[in-house]
């Protein structure tokens, strides 16, 4: 938050992006695929972090924004035959619009009520997907054909099912959202969001329309989560109702808590860590939910600041 070291901050973020770029050429096939998935979902976590970490609003309904992007992109490709870029934009627009409506309603409440209201709206969204199974494929979901996942620019065509193209596309989106997040956090808007988290009443008395600022944050957060969902649909070719379930509202919370709330790189660290813990332990146990549950409790008991949050507190005060 301080202006002390912008150069160091930018160097760190560019460095992380460069490292991820380099990893594409080193990682074995399996891990290359896993990393693409992690980067796409880390964007989901970054969107969640914007609201939870910086504004301090705990939502349990972000699966609806993710799946608004997922279905916004997936259904336009599947039913309307739209191209990849148009479908991606449609997905993000769906998420932003939904976030605007939900924000206008849910922000009338605070604290625990906000959490329950967002959870209920997400539940409605989930049930709507099941109800309109004729279009959405219900709980079976829809598979997006490989032919529909090719981007043609001029003469060249990019096949999103190609592992390297997929990795690079996920990285591009991740990098853009990371830099956008960093810009927001360092901006005046970001400073106001943190002030609202710390003391909303006081922020009002400094002349800020805190309601409008919170709404803007909800919309930004919803749009970012929708971008993640849209990319997920297009890169991995599957759209399903399980992504709208309450579990996908809890996962970004877990990733953000683990990596460190209100840190720009925390969402990536948390998603990466959780994915590899699951991956490694899946060798000797199928009890995936048990690991999630234990991780949540241990985190909230012993590391409420998460990995990067603790590092920032102990050693690197300048970490954004």
């Amino acid at each position: 938050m301080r202006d002390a070291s912008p150069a160091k901050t930018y160097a760190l973020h560019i460095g992380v992006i460069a490292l991820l770029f380099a990893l594409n050429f080193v990682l074995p096939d399996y891990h290359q695929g896993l990393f693409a998935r992690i980067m796409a979902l880390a964007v989901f976590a970054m969107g969640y972090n914007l609201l939870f970490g910086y504004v301090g609003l705990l939502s349990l309904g972000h699966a609806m924004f993710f799946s608004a992007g997922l279905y916004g992109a997936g259904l336009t490709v599947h039913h309307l035959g739209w191209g990849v870029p148009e479908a991606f934009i449609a997905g993000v627009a769906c998420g932003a619009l939904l976030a605007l409506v939900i924000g206008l309603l849910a922000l009338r409440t605070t604290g625990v009520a906000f959490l329950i209201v967002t959870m209920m709206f997400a539940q409605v969204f989930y049930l709507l997907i099941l109800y309109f199974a004729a279009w959405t494929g219900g709980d079976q979901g829809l598979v997006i054909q490989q032919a529909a996942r090719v981007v043609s620019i001029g003469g060249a065509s990019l096949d999103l099912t190609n592992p390297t193209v997929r990795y690079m596309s996920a990285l591009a989106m991740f990098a853009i959202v990371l830099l956008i997040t960093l810009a927001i956090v360092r901006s005046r808007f970001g400073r106001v969001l943190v002030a609202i988290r710390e003391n909303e009443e006081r922020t009002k008395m400094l002349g800020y329309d805190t309601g409008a600022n919170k709404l803007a944050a909800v919309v930004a957060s919803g749009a970012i989560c929708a971008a993640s969902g849209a990319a997920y649909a297009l890169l991995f070719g599957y759209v399903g109702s399980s992504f709208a379930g309450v579990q996908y509202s809890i996962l970004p919370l877990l990733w953000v808590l683990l990596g460190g709330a209100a840190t720009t790189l925390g969402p990536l660290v948390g998603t990466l860590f959780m994915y590899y813990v699951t991956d490694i332990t899946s060798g000797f146990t199928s009890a995936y939910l048990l690991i999630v549950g234990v991780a949540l409790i241990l985190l909230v008991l012993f590391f409420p600041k998460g990995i990067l949050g603790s590092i920032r507190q102990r050693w690197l005060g300048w970490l954004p």
Partner: protein
Amino acid sequence: MMPLLTTKGLSRNFGGLRAVDGVDFALMPGEIRAIIGPNGAGKTTFVSLLSGRIRPSAGMVVFDGADITTMPAYRRVRLGVAYTFQITSVFANLTAFDNVALPVQRTLTDGRSKGQVRNGVMAALERTGLADRAGTLAGQLSYGHQRLLEVAMGLALKPRLLILDEPTQGLADSEIDNFITLVREIAKDATVLLIEHNMPVVMQLADRITVFNFGKILAEGTPEQIRANGQVQDAYLGATHD
């Protein structure tokens, strides 16, 4: 001269309690006005009605000729009504710099340049003597410095009316002297309305004093007049032995 702020029949009930009861009040531009009165007289409720933190049950508030009775608090702040809290409520987890940057960045209209914010912040911190603590987390400042930071934040809003709610509470004597100098300086370009219990501070600073009792105005006048007022002595000065 037209008053900067007036209230007509301003009232606020909490359940059956009439915390503020039909108050007619006028404040002239440029003056330093103190509000005094026993605990529970309705002083904080009254200034909260002025700042918009709570809504009146009846009556109206006029600022600079405009009716602001139903205006939300944040818009009153933008008009120039600044309020500093009775209980220190700086942003404890933000640096002193960021605390002041919040009001500064809002009053800047040109928007872009980062240097402008920095200059504005440092000016406000220097005026309150906190410049060398810009990078310290507000929660780690001493109590007296937190009160000063609170004032710096109020100043940075460039208010036309600065409302201070018990600003000297908890300050050491030496800090109080600095504070009096500071308020005099602020009053060069803003009107100051302060709730204060410390009588020597009130007598030194105030141009006029308004005395509240049971939600109503009991008396109003210059410090000399108030000192000589028998009613006030009974209700307040005598009762608290200040």
